[in-house]
C-alpha cells in the first residue's frame, strides 16, 4: 500500500535520525520518522538491574525483543549460531525512540583533530583499512558546538590540554565530584596526567526545561527517572513534532529502500505495527538505523540495477565493522570508594589518546559507571574462584572498596570485520537478518594491552593494594559503539558515502549514523554522530531545490 508522498523519510529515531528529522522539519520539509521500537520515557525507568540495556540476564530493557530479531554470528572457527537480541555476541544497541540515547551513559566526547587523520598520522598497519576522514575536525567543530548546545552537555574540558580547539565552553558546569573522583584526581596529577570532568549529555543544572541529575545509581543502561539525561527522545524529536512538519511512526520495521526502474531512490517499504507492508514515497531517504542495521537495510535493498544492494557496487557496504575495545583495570582499596552517588563515571584523562610510543592512537581513560551488585560478580580478579565461600567473601569485602578504570581503544579497521545479509535466516517479518563475522586487528589488542597497563598504574598510584588488568579478546567489536560499515570517503571505489553522508551515485539517499565513521576515535562516539547529523542535515537543506 502506497502512502502520500513526503519530502523526506528518516529510518531510525536514534542519535542521528532524530536530529535529521528535526533539522529537515525546521527547514519546512515534510518528514516521516520511522522507528522500529516504541516511545519509552522517564516513566519507563524501572531500575531493573537484570533487565536493562547493560545487563540483559532477563532480557533487553529497551529493545529489541528476543523473539523477532535474531542475528547470525560466525565464530572464528567458522561455526555459525543464531543469537537472540539479549545474548552476548548480538552487538545490540537499542530499539526505541531516542535509540541508544535514552539509556546511554551519555559521555559527550569530541574526537581530536588527529582522529580524523589516522592514516596520514600513523600509516595503516598491514591488514587494516585505516584511512583519513574526508572531512576535518575544523569542518565539524561548529556542529559539535551545536550538538552540545541543543542536546545539552555538562562538564569542563578546560583542564585537558589535549582537547581540540573549541570556540565555546560547554553549556552546563560539571556535576560535583564523587568519591572516586576525589581518590583518582590527585593520583593522576602525581603521575603528571591531566584529569578533568567527563563531558556528559546530562543536565547538571536545569536545562532545556528539564531538571538536573539526582545522582542515583541507575544510570548507564537505564532511562533516567527524572529525564535529566539528554537524548534525542527528549530534545530534538519532540521539537521536530512540534513544527507540525514531522510525523513519528513507532514500531515500524523497514524492509527495504525502494528504487524505480531507472534506479532512483523513491521511498521506503516498511511493516507497520500491525505487520502490514506499507510504502512511504519520499524525495529524500535518510537511513539512520545504526551501523549493523543501516548496512543490513542497504544490502537488503536489491533490484535489477542494484543486485548487491544499494551503495554496494564496490562491495564496501557492511565492511570495516568496528566499535571499541575496552581494556582497563580494577583496584582494591583499604577504604570505601563507593558513595552511591551516580552516575559514577566522573573523571577522565586524555593523555593516552595519541603519542604513545610505537602505537597508532590510543584511548581516553575514565573511571567506570556505578556497578550494581550483580555486575560486580563477573569482574573479580582471576585468582578468585567464581563460586563458593571465597567468591562470597570477596564480594562482601571488596564491593564498596573497588574502582574500575577503562577506556575505548580506537580500533584499526579490518575489511573482513563485517555485516552481511544472511542467505538463510530471516526475522519475524521475513527480512534476511544481519550476519556478523570477523575480528579485531592485532594492533588494536597491542594498544589495548598498553591502555590496560596505564589504567593499572593510575589505580596503583591512587593507593590500590591489589590491581588486575582486563584486556578483551580478539573477537568482533560493535555493540553500542558500532560504526564503520558505510564508510565516508571521496572515492566511490573505496567508500559508500561522500563527506556529506550522501551515498555515492544517489543524490537523494543519505546514511546518518555511526556507519559513516572512517575510524571511531578513542572516545564514545555519540557526540560525533550527532555533529555529523547536523552537518549532513545542513547539506540536505542547502541542496534542497527551492519550490519543489
Amino acid at each position: 500500500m502506497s502512502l502520500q508522498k513526503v519530502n523526506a523519510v528518516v529510518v531510525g529515531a536514534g542519535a542521528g535520525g532524530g536530529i535529521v528529522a528535526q533539522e529537515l522539519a525546521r527547514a519546512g520539509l515534510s518528514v516521516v520518522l520511522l522507528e522500529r521500537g516504541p516511545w519509552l520515557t522517564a516513566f519507563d525507568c524501572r531500575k531493573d538491574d537484570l533487565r536493562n540495556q547493560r545487563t540483559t540476564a532477563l532480557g533487553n530493557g529497551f529493545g529489541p525483543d528476543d523473539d523477532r530479531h535474531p542475528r547470525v554470528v560466525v565464530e572464528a572457527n567458522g561455526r555459525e549460531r543464531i543469537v537472540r537480541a539479549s545474548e552476548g555476541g548480538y552487538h545490540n544497541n537499542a530499539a526505541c525512540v531516542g535509540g541508544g540515547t535514552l539509556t546511554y551513559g551519555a559521555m559527550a566526547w569530541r574526537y581530536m583533530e588527529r582522529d580524523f587523520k589516522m592514516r596520514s598520522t600513523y600509516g595503516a598497519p598491514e591488514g587494516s583499512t585505516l584511512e583519513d576522514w574526508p572531512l576535518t575536525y575544523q569542518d565539524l567543530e561548529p556542529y559539535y558546538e551545536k550538538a552540545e548546545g541543543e542536546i545539552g552537555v555538562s562538564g569542563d574540558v578546560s583542564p585537558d590540554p589535549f582537547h581540540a580547539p573549541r570556540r565555546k565552553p560547554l553549556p552546563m558546569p560539571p556535576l560535583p565530584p564523587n568519591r572516586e573522583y576525589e581518590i583518582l584526581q590527585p593520583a593522576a596529577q602525581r603521575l603528571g596526567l591531566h584529569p578533568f570532568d567527563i563531558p556528559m549529555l546530562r543536565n547538571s543544572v536545569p536545562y532545556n526545561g528539564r531538571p538536573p541529575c539526582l545522582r542515583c545509581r541507575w544510570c548507564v543502561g537505564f532511562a533516567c527517572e527524572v529525564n535529566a539525561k539528554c537524548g534525542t527522545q527528549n530534545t530534538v524529536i519532540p521539537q521536530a513534532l512540534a513544527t507540525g512538519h514531522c510525523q513519528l511512526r513507532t514500531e515500524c520495521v523497514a524492509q527495504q529502500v525502494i528504487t524505480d526502474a531507472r534506479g532512483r531512490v523513491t521511498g521506503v517499504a516498511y511493516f507497520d505495527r500491525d505487520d502490514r507492508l506499507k510504502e512511504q514515497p519520499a524525495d529524500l531517504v535518510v537511513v539512520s538505523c545504526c551501523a549493523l542495521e543501516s548496512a543490513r537495510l542497504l544490502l537488503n535493498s536489491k533490484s535489477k540495477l542494484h543486485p548487491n544492494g544499494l551503495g554496494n557496487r564496490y562491495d564496501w557496504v557492511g565492511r570495516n565493522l568496528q566499535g571499541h575495545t575496552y581494556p582497563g583495570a580494577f583496584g582494591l582499596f583499604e577504604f570505601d570508594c563507593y558513595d552511591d552517588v551516580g552516575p559514577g563515571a566522573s573523571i577522565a584523562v586524555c593523555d593516552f589518546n595519541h603519542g604513545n610510543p610505537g602505537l597508532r592512537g590510543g584511548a581516553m581513560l575514565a573511571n567506570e559507571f556505578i556497578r550494581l551488585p550483580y555486575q560486580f560478580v563477573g569482574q573479580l580478579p582471576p585468582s578468585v574462584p567464581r563460586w563458593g565461600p571465597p567468591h562470597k567473601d570477596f564480594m562482601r569485602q571488596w564491593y564498596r572498596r573497588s574502582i574500575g578504570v577503562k577506556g575505548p581503544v580506537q580500533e584499526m579497521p579490518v575489511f573482513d570485520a563485517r555485516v552481511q545479509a544472511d542467505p538463510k535466516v530471516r526475522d519475524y517479518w521475513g527480512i534476511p537478518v544481519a550476519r556478523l563475522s570477523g575480528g579485531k586487528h592485532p594492533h588494536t589488542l597491542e594498544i589495548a594491552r598498553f591502555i590496560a597497563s596505564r589504567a593499572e598504574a593510575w589505580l596503583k598510584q591512587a593507593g590500590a593494594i591489589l590491581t588486575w588488568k582486563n584486556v578483551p579478546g580478539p573477537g568482533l567489536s560493535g555493540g553500542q559503539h558500532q560504526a564503520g560499515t558505510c564508510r565516508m570517503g571521496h572515492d566511490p571505489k573505496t567508500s559508500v558515502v561522500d563527506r556529506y553522508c550522501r551515498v555515492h551515485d544517489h543524490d537523494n539517499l543519505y546514511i546518518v549514523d555511526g556507519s559513516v565513521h572512517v575510524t571511531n576515535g578513542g572516545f564514545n562516539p555519540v557526540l560525533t554522530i550527532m555533529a555529523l547529523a547536523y552537518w549532513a542535515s545542513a547539506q540536505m537543506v542547502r541542496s534542497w531545490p527551492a519550490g519543489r
Partner: protein
Amino acid sequence: MKPQTIRRRKFLGAAAAAAAAAGALSCGTRKSPWRFLSAEEAAALAAMADRIIPADQDPGAASSGAVNFIDRHLMGHFKRFRQTYRDGLAALERTARTMFGQKFAGLDAGVQDRLLKLLESGAASRVIWNQVAPRQFFDMVVGHTMQSYYGDPRHGGNRDAASWRMLGVPLVPVRGRDQYDFTKPGGRTA
C-alpha cells in the same frame, strides 16, 4: 486515608490475583509447590545453589530464594533452559547415587563440592551426562544463582535484600511514581 495505604491495599489485592494466576500456570508435577520444577529437582537445585553461595554470617543462596527465582523465570525468560535443567538435575542425582549412593541434597557439603568440581571440570561420567554437558549445566546454574542472590528482590531471589545488606548497598528508596502494575504479567505497565 493516606495515599500510601490505598496503594498498599491495591498492591495486596493484585498480589493475591497474581499468586492465583501463577497457580493456574503451574506445569510441574501435581504435588510440587513449584511452577516448573518437581519437588525433587527443587531440593537438588537448592543444595547446589547453597554450595555456590553458602550460608555463613549472611544467608546462603537457597534461603535467599534461588529456587524461587530460577523456577519463576523458567516460566518466562528462561524458558529455553527448561530441558537443560530437567536433564542436568537428573544427571546430578544419578551421579550422586552412582558415586556416593545418596541423593545430592543428602551429601555432606565437602562431598557436594567435590561433585560440583567434577561437573565444573567437565570430568563427570559421559554415560550419565549424555543429554547435557556437565560444564554447560554447571555454568548455567552458577550464573542464575548469582542473578538470584545479587539481583533485585523483585525478581524472586535476594530475599529481604540480604545480599545488598551484606555488601552495604543502600536499599532502593521508594520514590513517587506508581509505575508498577502487578495485575499484568511481569508487573510492567507497558
